[in-house]
């Protein structure tokens, strides 16, 4: 079986073999450069409606376990790998990735040309794509169908991935803080990192209003990561939180919304940052964190110093050293901050875990 195809909207076609579920799927074609953590990646809600290609050639070696998923399901729209593992080798694994993808109905393909695909996306930018494991039509027709699939710009997807009902993640050990976490596509590790630090985390639907947020009497408010175009999101609740001077922390999509709430604009990156090796520099200390990234959009903000916002002066707190993209924002008074990358990691390095400590410190100061 070598008849499966990956078709890009610009007409480029990659041939390969089916992997996971059979059928067809469409989404925005992106690549992820992490060499570990496929299970976390697959279950990250931020990948909703995206076909993810892994640049690491061997995928599935350690199988799938019950501890590592970041949410209750696989979110990627499709999966592209080079060499799927034929066996499972890990003491925690209880099934193979192939079986897991089939069970989750995720259509995938194994192609030799993952590097060529990556180079193509690097040069031409992220684009729509489709995987057809048993294509019944000529390529030209498949390309046409790919072009008809919805793009990512302008997509409002947070509500599609977020929880419908509020739920509580209890603090591990003594409860020291109450956090209202607005779920825009939250990963399981995020409330866990807060819970480890004594936070009782009230995870709220993406549509939570200011009143609903304040109803949990939070010491701090958190806006999560999530898929889609930040330009489509309503930031009125967040603005109200900031106006009420409640401590705020945001990650990824939450960072983009914080930026918009501050009056900044967001834009789509050519091919985004997806991987676990991105160098981010803390502008104040000069220290570099190796960090996990998954974003296709970024905030436009002045890199040369503080700027005015409706909530007081703010500054860019973190910068990506690869492309000087904005990776973090903070109000100078310190009560609200956010980062574009993933301090909760999963997958990825733990260098930025200190940001959760900082959030707790801000809440402690506010409590005093």
């Amino acid at each position, binding site marked *: 079986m070598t008849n499966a195809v990956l078709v890009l909207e610009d007409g480029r076609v990659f041939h390969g073999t089916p992997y996971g579920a059979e059928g067809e799927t469409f989404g925005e074609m992106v690549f992820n*450069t992490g060499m*570990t953590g496929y299970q976390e990646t697959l279950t990250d809600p931020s990948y909703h409606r995206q076909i993810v290609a892994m*640049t690491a050639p061997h995928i599935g070696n350690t199988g799938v376990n019950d501890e590592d998923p970041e949410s209750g399901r696989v979110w990627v729209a499709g999966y592209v790998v080079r060499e799927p*593992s034929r*066996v499972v*080798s890990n003491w*925690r694994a209880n099934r193979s990735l192939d079986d897991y993808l089939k069970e989750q109905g995720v259509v995938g393909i194994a192609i030799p040309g993952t*590097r060529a695909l990556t180079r193509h996306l690097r040069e031409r930018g992220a684009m729509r794509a489709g995987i057809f494991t048993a294509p019944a039509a000529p390529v030209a027709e498949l390309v046409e169908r790919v072009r008809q699939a919805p793009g990512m710009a302008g997509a409002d997807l947070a509500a599609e991935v977020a929880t419908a009902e509020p739920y509580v993640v209890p603090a591990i050990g003594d409860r020291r803080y109450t956090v209202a976490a607005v779920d825009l596509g939250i990963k399981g590790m995020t409330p866990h990192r807060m819970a480890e630090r004594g936070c009782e985390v009230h995870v709220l639907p993406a549509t939570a209003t200011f009143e609903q947020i304040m109803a949990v009497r939070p010491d701090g408010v958190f806006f999560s990561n999530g898929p889609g175009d930040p330009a489509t999101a309503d930031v009125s609740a967040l603005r109200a939180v900031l106006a009420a001077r409640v401590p705020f922390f945001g990650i990824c999509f939450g960072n983009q919304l914080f930026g918009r709430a501050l009056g900044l604009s967001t834009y789509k990156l050519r091919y985004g940052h997806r*991987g676990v090796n991105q160098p981010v520099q803390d502008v104040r200390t000069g220290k570099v964190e190796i960090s996990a990234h998954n974003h296709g959009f970024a905030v436009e903000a002045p890199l040369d110093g503080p700027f005015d916002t409706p909530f007081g002066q703010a500054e860019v707190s973190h910068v990506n050293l*690869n492309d000087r993209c904005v990776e973090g924002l903070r109000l100078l008074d310190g009560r609200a901050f956010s980062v574009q990358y993933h301090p909760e990691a999963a997958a990825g390095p733990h260098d930025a875990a200190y940001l959760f400590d900082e959030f707790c410190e801000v809440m402690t100061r506010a409590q005093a």
Partner: protein
Amino acid sequence: MPKREDIRSVLVIGSGPIVIGQACEFDYSGTQACRVLRDEGFRVILVNSNPATIMTDPEFADATYVEPITPEFVEKIIAKERPDALLPTLGGQTALNTAVALHEAGVLEAYDVELIGADFDAIQAGENRELFKGIVAKVARDHGLNAESARSVVCHTMDDCLAAVGELGYPLVVRPSFTMGGVGSGFAYDESDLRRIAGAGLDASPTTEVLLEESILGWKEYELEVMRDRRDNVVIVCSIENIDPMGVHTGDSVTVAPALTLTDREYQNMRDVAIAVIREVGVDTGGCNIQFAVEPRTGRMIVIEMNPRVSRSSALASKATGFPIAKIAAKLAIGYTLDEIPNDITRETPASFEPTLDYIVVKVPRFAFEKFKGADPTLTTHMKSVGEAMAIGRSFAEALQKALRSLEKKGSSFTWAGELAGKAELLAACRTPHDGRLVTMQQAIRAGATAEELYEATSVDPWFLDQLFLLQEEAQALADAPELTVEVLRRVKGHGFSDVQIGEIRGIDEARVRDLRHALGLRPVYNTVDTCAAEFAAKTPYLYSAYDEESEVPYGTRRKVIILGSGPNRIGQGIEFDYACVHASFELSRAGYETVMVNCNPETVSTDYDTSDRLYFEPLTLEDVLEVVHAEQETGPVAGVIVQLGGQTPLGLAQALKDAGVPVVGTSPESIHLAEERGAFGQVLAEAGLPAPKHGTATTVAEALAVAEDVGYPVLVRPSYVLGGAGMAIVYDEETLTTYMAAEEGGHPVLIDKFLDEAVEIDVDALYDGTELYLGGVMEHIEEAGIHSGDSACTLPPITLGSLDIKRIRAATEAIADGVGVRGLLNVQYAMSAGVLYVLEANPRASRTVPFVSKATAVPLAKAAARVMLGASLAELRAEGMLPATGDGGTLPMEASIAVKEAVLPFNRFRGVDIVLGPEMRSTGEVMGIDESFGIAFAKSQAAAYGELPTKGRAFVSVANRDKRAMIFPVKALADLGFEILATEGTAEVLRRNGVRAKIVRKQSEGTGPGGEPTSVQCILNGEIDLIVNTPFGSPGQSGPRLDGYDIRTAAVLRGIPCITTVAGLAAAAAGIQAIVRGDVGVRSLQEHAQALRG
């Protein structure tokens, strides 16, 4: 943080001679460091006793000291040069130990020299096992990390060891402190093992300390390469997973990068632990590596050890990822932070990132057990490999198969042809780690072994085992395919099958497979090693082949020269050839060519992406080289391929390349054949009127006996077409010759030469452009004939040859160069016997001695050779100033310094192997001693190779009858210097009769005396002897391991006492000791020597 301005000069310590466990990776790291420091404007002072290194080229440092790396000599250099700082982390364990000794002796403080790269406390914390264990425990406690050390007990005496067994139980691991490459470590399964291994370990450890620990045999093994800067930024450059589980030294294991069987959680925990450990140890400006073991059923993780310095693994990680660890480590040491250093490969992104790979790297070790009869070939925690090859592929299978064929050793690749042993036998063989175990495992699969059976036998992770099964299935599918279609071929090529393997499976020859493949348009593409999995565009062309989608070879218009490297280090083909290749690349690039390097040895400077305009990390087989040449021809004009500089490996490809239409520059393949084929070469000599020892060729026992009868015993026998004297022996009688021939029958023809006893051997390196000969250097061997030139010490200029002799040598060399048709380098070996100059052999290529000659005479021979190969004349090179305007290495002035080259032998690695030198080369490396007087130069060479010669104490002398007359004078000299002389009975009698007081010591075979008088071996083991002179008894062919001499020499190796095995060596040593006793020994840089030589 920018560069430090308070430091102006830096002393860099190299790693000395190539030995097992410390090879040319430290030339690579040291060269990078020197380049960085000079680029940053520092005055660089370098000490390294190894003349074959690139780093000791005078242009890499302001003052280059080819002097022994001992605290005494380094102190002299410090006193003379007064450096502000000492960088000890790029010269392996040798540099680190020397720096520690200088610190402890107060030298660094006295001269106000700052240690940079790692401070003393960090070195201690990383290297001292007890301190390190404490650090791991602290890290686990303070950071809540899953980290622990193996349960262990530190012991300083044998009683401590025996007591520890109660706590740990057998089996247990013995690890001595402060030794490199795991010397002296091993597994003890019972008390006698423990006494033996721990006893030797206590001796080997400079701190008389061994660690006993719980066995973690069979666990998964990993390494992380970590870098940290002074602002506490930390990155993990690379993860490496060992396919051979715990129990085999990492240097001897097949390893893969990145790690392939860890989930992100496990990997991140490992990463967190590594970072916490490097912080706690306090390595704040540089690199280190940390090793882990993981229990496969529970995931329990143990931190094994760390090296607070750049290591062999760092070199591998640098080549595997494109992240230049040594270069960055040097920059960090002088004050920069990671974010201030650009990533050379992308040029746009900083070095403060973690490389991500979209390919797989496999490293395989190369062994040389065939050279060390009697050595135990089982792989243990004690490193035994002499080199390694690395390969890159887009899948593990592709990388693994490329790596195995990079070893260029018969039987190193998987095979699906030929006799198959029984499954049970193969599975049993797999239980013991050995050279080529993966091939044994593959054969077991062929024989029907299951994954469960193999796992049970080897503990190799099931994922890797499955890859072997995958290859089996692919091979089967290939065998079953009705026709070799493009689909069938693409599939097996994608799994790394060579044309040779495909031909073997299909029963057709390699060339036919290749023709068919080319006709189908199936060729590999070349991908870039770009540190970022294609996320950013790479600027540095560092390429590997893969059967993949798109080729990334850039188009160009400059004329290109492709240089074929020398592949994995092995005995007889090592760093010297890399030196020649690198020099050619530098020089041809300067001369306007685009240089393209092909090599597969990750330890080398040639595989640094900075060395050539383009680097192909590829096996040096005909198939792989032809594909590279094709890819280069497709993208621009190729002026030629150089095969003469990388040793026998590329030379062996010369004819086939030419036949395939590849332009081979320099000496033509036909000329190479003229020199290599005995009959043809005999013709050349006859036409030039040059005598060779009487000789003949034989393929059967009967023919051999007839030839020997004709030329007369003793005879020198060897298979044709070999390097490093493989399989060479001196045979004194028919019986031995019969045994020898019986083993060789059916292979290459055997060459049989009259062996010239008592001759002086002479080695010559020369350049020839077709009209003029440049005699690079004439080297006189210190040992008499019969010892391989690679193993014998030699002196340049020769100390006993007159100008008339040199004139004859020049004329003979010119006649050979002209007769063979050399364009470039030529090495000739002569023997001078009874006034006759015999030609032993000629090699129309770079020799092992080229770097030594270049350094001793201050002339860059390899660079000149490269230019000659591309058409420059010697006259032009003289005019350019590359060669001296007049004269050459044969006309050195009387007052020229004397350079002595000494070989370094790996006997301490192969206990049980006789250390007597013979015609088969066994040395791994070399050192150079240089001084105005021969005695001091020789003494320096000994100090650099084996430790300083003693100047007082007891000398034990026991020589063969034939040597008794010749040893009297030098032994008398030792006695006059105040040595107490001990000798076996026969030797003592001769000495006494000649007025030398000698005390008789019992032979080992006589046993302990009635009054408890110890034997010679007991005296040595008891540490009562300071110098041993022992020449072998009987003919080398007969010397069995039961002879006394063997026990004496084994004891000498065990105790690390200088042991001289030839009378000529004794005379030189006596001269050296006299020189040391007479006065202060000084140090002088190569730049000063060159100044003196060239004025």
